[in-house]
Structure formats: structure tokens, C-alpha cells
């Protein structure tokens, strides 16, 4: 049940953050979506032994965190949730990687570099995706998708799914709590109760869908996805999109940490 409550809390937290106002929040959702996708694609394009060359990419989340009024803690904690899976696969590289890198006078297994590279890429890509949602919100993302010519049917059902998740999570939370109170010795729902408990919830969901549809019809729903619209891409949005994308490409082409390191150590 704690999972369900935690999910609801996470969802509401991100929704709340997306309603804040800052320079980043005011940027066009299309520009933010494009920058996030470019960031993730370029980040994951690095080879599996790349570690220090990924560090310039930390700048993007740091600047976004600093420029918008968002506390880094909750986003970073959520980033850590994803790490175990990647770490699990990454740890196997310590066993299977046969090569070594020579670091100074020490030989280090190449598996450590792969593991570090995976963890860095994972943290940064997850943080970028969460920051996109924390500074944009679902409605604006839906609007951006429509601008990018994603079919309205898909966008509409995506938005509806999102809106009703919080309602149904509350209902599932109540069911789980009621079950836990009646069956204190059971940590999970027994097989005998699977059908009646979740099946009834499903039947209630059908009833809810009918009421949702009726309410939508009363408000003039004719199968189209309507939004109040958002202004066109302004010069600042273009600058944000092109500037960051150019920066990501530059950091992909030039190994900035190695360059700075060579400047400092005097070895070229």
C-alpha cells in the first residue's frame, strides 16, 4: 500500500512543481521536449567506457534546477529509485569485462568504467526527463504533442489516463487499506480475493468511464481535443532549444574535461 500512496504523492508533487513560475517554466513545451530528447539521445550515444567526458552534461540539470524554483532533493531521490536495475546489469560488467585501463600507475578493470558510465547516464537521463515534467506538466506536454502532429485520439486518451490515475490510485489505496485492516497477517492480496477485489474495481471503473463520458458530452465533447492554446515559439524558445542542442553536440565532439585537464596538467 505504501507504493500506492507514494505514487500518488509523487504524482501530486510533480503536478505542483509544474504549476510554479520561472524562466524555465515559461519556455515553450515544444522547445523543452526537443532539448530533453536531444540531451538523452546525445548522452546515450557515448561509448560504454566514457565517464569523465559525460560530466559536462551535468551542467544542464544544474542550470535548470538553479533557474527554476525547484528543490533538487525530491527529483534526485526519485532518480535514485531507478539506479538498482542499471546497477544490477552494470555490476555484471565487473565479472565479464576482461580488459583493464591504466590509471596513473594502477590498473583498473574496464568493468568499473562501464558501471560508472551506465550509472552516470542513468542518473542524468532520468533527471532530465523528470525536470521536463516538473517544469512543464502534462497538459502542456499534450499540447506540445499536438503541435508535433501526434494524432488527437492518442493525445486525448493519454491526458485522460493521466487525469484518472490520481482518482483510481486513491480508490486502490482505500481498497488496499481496507484489505490490510481486515487481513493484518497478509502483506499482499490472497489469490482467492484477486478476482472479486480487482474485478469489482474494474466494474466500477466502467461505470466511472460512462459518467466521465456523459460529463464530457454535457460540456460539448465532440471527439476533439481542445486546449486554450499556447503562444508560438518565441525567440527565447528558439535560443533555448538551439543553444542547448548546440552545446550538447559540442560536448559530444570535444572532450571538454580532457581538454581542461590537459590545460591544467600541461600534458597535451
Amino acid at each position, binding site marked *: 500500500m505504501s507504493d500506492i500512496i507514494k505514487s500518488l504523492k509523487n504524482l501530486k508533487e510533480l503536478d505542483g512543481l509544474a504549476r510554479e513560475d520561472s524562466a524555465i517554466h515559461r519556455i515553450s513545451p515544444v522547445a523543452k521536449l526537443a532539448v530533453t530528447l536531444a540531451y538523452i539521445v546525445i548522452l546515450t550515444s557515448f561509448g560504454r567506457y566514457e565517464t569523465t567526458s559525460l560530466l559536462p552534461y551535468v551542467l544542464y540539470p544544474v542550470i535548470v534546477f538553479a533557474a527554476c524554483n525547484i528543490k533538487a532533493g525530491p527529483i534526485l531521490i526519485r532518480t535514485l529509485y531507478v539506479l538498482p536495475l542499471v546497477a544490477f546489469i552494470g555490476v*555484471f560488467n565487473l565479472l565479464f569485462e576482461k580488459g583493464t585501463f591504466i590509471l596513473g600507475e594502477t590498473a583498473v578493470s574496464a568493468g568499473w568504467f*562501464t558501471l560508472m558510465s551506465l550509472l552516470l547516464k542513468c542518473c542524468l537521463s532520468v533527471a532530465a526527463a523528470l525536470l521536463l515534467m516538473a517544469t512543464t506538466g502534462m497538459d502542456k506536454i499534450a499540447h506540445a504533442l499536438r503541435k508535433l502532429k501526434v494524432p488527437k485520439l492518442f493525445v486525448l486518451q493519454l491526458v485522460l489516463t493521466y487525469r484518472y490515475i490520481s482518482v483510481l490510485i486513491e480508490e486502490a489505496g482505500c481498497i488496499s487499506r481496507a484489505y490490510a485492516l481486515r487481513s493484518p497477517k497478509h502483506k499482499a492480496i490472497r489469490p482467492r480475493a484477486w478476482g472479486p477485489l480487482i474485478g469489482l474495481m474494474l466494474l466500477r471503473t466502467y461505470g466511472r*468511464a460512462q459518467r466521465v463520458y456523459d460529463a464530457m458530452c454535457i460540456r460539448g*465533447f465532440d471527439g476533439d481535443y481542445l486546449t486554450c492554446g499556447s503562444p508560438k515559439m518565441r525567440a527565447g524558445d528558439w535560443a533555448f532549444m538551439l543553444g542547448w542542442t548546440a552545446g550538447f553536440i559540442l560536448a559530444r565532439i570535444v572532450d571538454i574535461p580532457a581538454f581542461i585537464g590537459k590545460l591544467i596538467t*600541461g600534458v597535451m
Partner: protein
Amino acid sequence: MHMADALISPAVGGVMWAASAGMAAYSIKKIQPDMDKKKIPLMGVLGAFVFTAQMINFSIPGTGSSGHLGGGVLLSALLGPYAGFLTMASILIIQALFFADGGLLALGCNIFNLGFFACFITYPLIYRLIIRKGYSGKKIFFASLASSVVALQLGAFFVVLETLLSGKTELPFGTFAMLMQPIHLAIGVVEGLITSAILAFVWRAQPDLLEKTEPGKPIGSIPIKKIVIFFIAAAMITGGVLSWFASTNPDGLEWSMGKVSGKTEIAAVGGIYDSMSQAQESTAFFPDYGFKDAGESAGETGKKPAAWPAALGETSVSGLVGGAMVLVLTGLTGLVIGFVKRKKKKPERSATGSP
């Protein structure tokens, strides 16, 4: 079974994005002609239902552990394969965006692995085949179980394939497959049992909900040839465009440079390089810190780097020093922006606070 961005290459992610987007476009095209407006909110609310049901723990008898619902077969059984696939895609998008479950680049892989096999392979080929002469408790049980197990086995196998094609880990194919397939056999059985329990209950309570579901045309009527041609074309285009991002040996950029200039490294001599070298020598904080002297290093500049796993010590150390500097500069940038923002806020507050 959600894949993370860090585990896949842009080429594999791009191909799977194209494949999933193609299937989504195909599904929209298929459901649009006879689309009942009522079905849109139903898809939305059922998507939210499956999303929520995925969080409920179901205890597995005799093991002391618990399992979760996936939902692909359940959605197909309730909505039909096309609407089921679109709803599954929505769930995965929301999971990727709000819960960091999977990633944006890995979204195509996840939609394909968790949606495609359940909705377009096992639902029409197994579920509908077993149910074709009408519903019964036993049929629902076997149809749900078999289609869930096979869908999860196929999905898990694709996770292995996608990870290995991405080249981000050194896990051997056999070992990875031997880890993934048995785990997902157990997960598939649990998924099948939960799905069958829910569907059996719904069928007993309101049989029309299942019986009126769009039957989902058998795979024979789906233009497989067109789909295969589309996937191959998508793979070639996306792979061709993005493969330079993915390959690590040789680096895609080096390869491109090699094609253009005939060398994988361009000799950096004269002009701005010399000026920068001089500037670097004068600005170096630790000019004697190198593991090899400058002459030796300069002599190696034109040489092809030693084949992996050998690595040059000074390169690694300067990389680490540079990396540390980049992090420090990044932190400072964040602090400066925060400081400037606070400075700006203060006068605003005092202005609003004064009568």
C-alpha cells in the same frame, strides 16, 4: 522489464521508437473508422485502472513473495488489440515521464516489449484462438495464462536482444538470456493468473463486457509483409542516421573523419593549435604533473592510439582532473544563478512588503 535509457544506444532506441510509433499509427488507423466516441474515455479510464492495478501487490501462494499485474493481455481482452496497444503505450509514457520507470529513449523499446507482443501476437494468436468458440471459466484461465507467459517470454527475449545490440554491457548473450527468461516465466505465470482471475470475475458479473469486445482480427489478416518492410526500412533509416552515435570502436565521428580525410585522427599542428598549446603551458596549474614528459607525449600525438584495453595514463589522469574541474565549474554556475535569483527576489519582496 522496463528498460532504462542508459542501457540502450540511440540506434536501437531509434529503431524501436520507429517500430512502436508505426504500430501506434497503424492502431489509430484501424480503430478510427468505427471509433465510438465513448471508447476514448473508456480507454483513458481503463489505462488509469491498469496503471493503478500494477501497484497492488498480489501474494504468490507457497513462495512468500508477491507479484504485479502487467496489463497487456487484460487491456487487449477488454478493449481489443488496437485500443489495448494505444492504452498500454499511454501507461508506459506516463510511467516514463512521471515515475522514471523506463526512459524517453527507451520508450519505444518498452512499448514494443510490453505492448506489441501481448496485443498483436499472443492476443490474436493464443487468446482469441482459445476463446474463439465462446467464453468459459476454463478457457479464460488457459487463454490468459498462455498468452501472458508467451508475451512475457518474447518481451524478455527482446530486452536481451536490445541490450546486447546496444553494446552497453559486456553480459554474454547466453548468460543474460538465462537470467531473464526463467525469471519472466515465473512473472508470466503470475501475470496470467491475475489476468484470468480478473477476467473470470468480470465475465461472470457482466459477460457482455468481454463478449462484445472487438474480436481482433487474426494475425493472418494483418499485412505482415507491409509491417516487415516498414520495420526493415525504419531500421535501415534510423540505424543509418544514428549508428554513428552508437558505435564505440571506431568512434562514429572518427569513422566519419576517416571517410572524409582518410585518417581517423587529424594532425593538430600549427595555427590555433600552437597558440592554444602556448596558452595552455602558461596557464597550466601543474605543469610538471604529467606522467610522461611533454616531448614524449607530443611524439605520440600523431600515432594511432594503442588498441583497447591499453590506455595512456596521462590521458586518464588529465581526464579525471578535467572532469573534477567541470563539476566544480558546474556547481559554481548553479550557485551563481541561485545567488542572482535570490538577489533579484529580495528587492521584489521589500517592494511588496513596504506600504
